[in-house]
């Protein structure tokens, strides 16, 4: 076997600023990357196996022989990290494996279960109503991202966690740095530190306050920290994770989904008139837009065969959710947006034990925001006719920085 020089391997993730924001990869990129497991070069000059088919992605993400722990030597990082960046990672269970991961995640599973999310739907509705009032007051035209897409999930996660929304500029900026692949490593490290310090003070105050407040961080402080099951540092790490995950993901889905629906006015109108179908529509939006476009990196800890390719212990692999969600063996006419297809098999929330714990919350926010938007603004349309919309190309979570709309 000959080994191809590194520079001959295609670079993952590709950057193409002219690509339509609704298309995860253009046709040429699709030809280059979609299909059987192939080797790619990463921006860190490491190599990794790219896994793009639906069945392969599911198999890989469910296989215990792949680690999510990015401190392991050889882990396929998509950006360089500052020296010592691994120093303070306690509680960040998204980067843990096995029992260590399960122990922390299970402290949260009841919080995000379907029944509890249904209970807070009135709060989501209220938040959406207020945001739509703001949009109305600001325009037309006005920016949907500033007034609706970002504040809705942000206010909801702040309310659930018991984090003051008044501090939103502080943690939104830091949250954005943490998922920006182009952010200088030192800045990432400083922002992690600042976010942890901020949440540390908040958690300490909640531990000291004892019984009173009924938010998620107060409950964990009371039920887990006081019993010695959970260290304060671990609770801080969980808080960082939940705050970040609650921010950009749903925000970007609301922005991109609105753009997509406004390009299909009949579907936008149907959203208002057939709100009962909104749950199915949400799944199709998640599949079609697949905002975690750079994929999920893992390190093989044993030899595993995926898609006919032997991935050896110590090698990196990246599960590309956006391509799996456009795999024709899993979905008919995958490049067509069809709100009436059965799209639940998508992997937009990942797969395996790390699958997004907040997905019932994300689905509810997206559904309520889009239905109420269509009801209150039936004549909504983009306020820009030409030129590029500002997109988040270097972010791990793709989306629009702004979506000017008029009505």
């Amino acid at each position, binding site marked *: 076997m000959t080994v191809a020089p590194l520079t001959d391997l295609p670079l993952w993730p590709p950057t193409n600023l002219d690509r339509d924001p609704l298309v995860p990869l253009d046709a040429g990129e699709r030809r280059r990357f979609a299909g059987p497991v192939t080797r790619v070069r990463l921006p860190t000059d490491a190599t990794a196996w790219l896994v793009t088919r639906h069945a392969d992605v599911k198999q890989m993400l*469910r296989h215990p022989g792949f680690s999510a722990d990015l401190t392991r030597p050889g882990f396929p990082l998509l950006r360089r990290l500052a020296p010592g960046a691994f120093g303070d990672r306690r509680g960040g269970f998204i980067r843990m494996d096995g029992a260590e991961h399960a122990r922390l995640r299970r402290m949260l599973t*009841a919080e995000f*279960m379907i029944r509890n999310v249904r209970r807070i739907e009135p709060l989501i509705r209220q938040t959406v109503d207020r945001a739509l009032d703001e949009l109305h007051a600001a325009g037309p035209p006005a920016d949907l991202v500033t007034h609706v897409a970002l504040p809705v999930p942000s206010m909801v996660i702040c309310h659930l966690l018991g984090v003051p929304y008044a501090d939103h500029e502080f943690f939104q900026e830091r949250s954005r740095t943490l998922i920006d692949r182009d952010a200088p490593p030192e800045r990432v490290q400083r922002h992690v530190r600042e976010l942890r310090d901020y949440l540390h003070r908040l958690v300490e105050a909640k531990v000291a306050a004892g019984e009173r407040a009924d938010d998620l961080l107060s409950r964990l402080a009371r039920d887990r920290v006081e019993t010695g099951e959970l260290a304060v540092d671990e609770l801080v790490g969980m808080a960082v994770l939940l705050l970040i995950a609650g921010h950009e993901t749903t925000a970007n889905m609301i922005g991109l989904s609105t753009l997509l629906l406004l390009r299909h006015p009949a579907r936008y109108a149907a959203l208002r008139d057939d709100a009962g179908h909104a749950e199915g529509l949400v799944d199709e939006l998640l599949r079609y837009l697949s905002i975690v476009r750079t994929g999920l990196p893992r390190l093989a800890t044993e030899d595993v065969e995926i898609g006919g390719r032997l991935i050896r212990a110590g090698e990196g692999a990246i599960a590309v959710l956006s391509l799996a969600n456009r795999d024709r063996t899993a979905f008919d006419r995958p490049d067509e947006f069809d709100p009436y297809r059965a799209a639940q098999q998508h992997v937009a929330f990942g797969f395996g034990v790390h*699958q997004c714990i907040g997905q019932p919350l994300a689905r509810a926010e997206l559904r309520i925001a889009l239905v109420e938007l269509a009801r209150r603004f039936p004549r909504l349309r983009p306020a820009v006719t030409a030129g590029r919309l500002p997109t988040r190309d270097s972010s791990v979570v793709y989306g629009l920085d702004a979506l000017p709309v008029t009505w």
Partner: protein
Amino acid sequence: MSGAVRVRVDRERCCGAGNCVVTAPEVFDQDDADGLVLLRRAEPPADAADRVRLAVELCPAGAITVAPRPVPERSSTP
């Protein structure tokens, strides 16, 4: 595929993603105490079988399994 199924859940493997509850709420529930899967009916009605199979597919942790359910009285042993 159709036919009655017998369902098993493995709470040790469950990661509380909740897909099963959305897919087949008459068969699966989540425990109020820990959010992990609870089996409401190990032998669901035949018309739920397809949804149960979908729940198996959608379970990210592989915590649900189904087996065909033997039909006791009408077995056609030669």
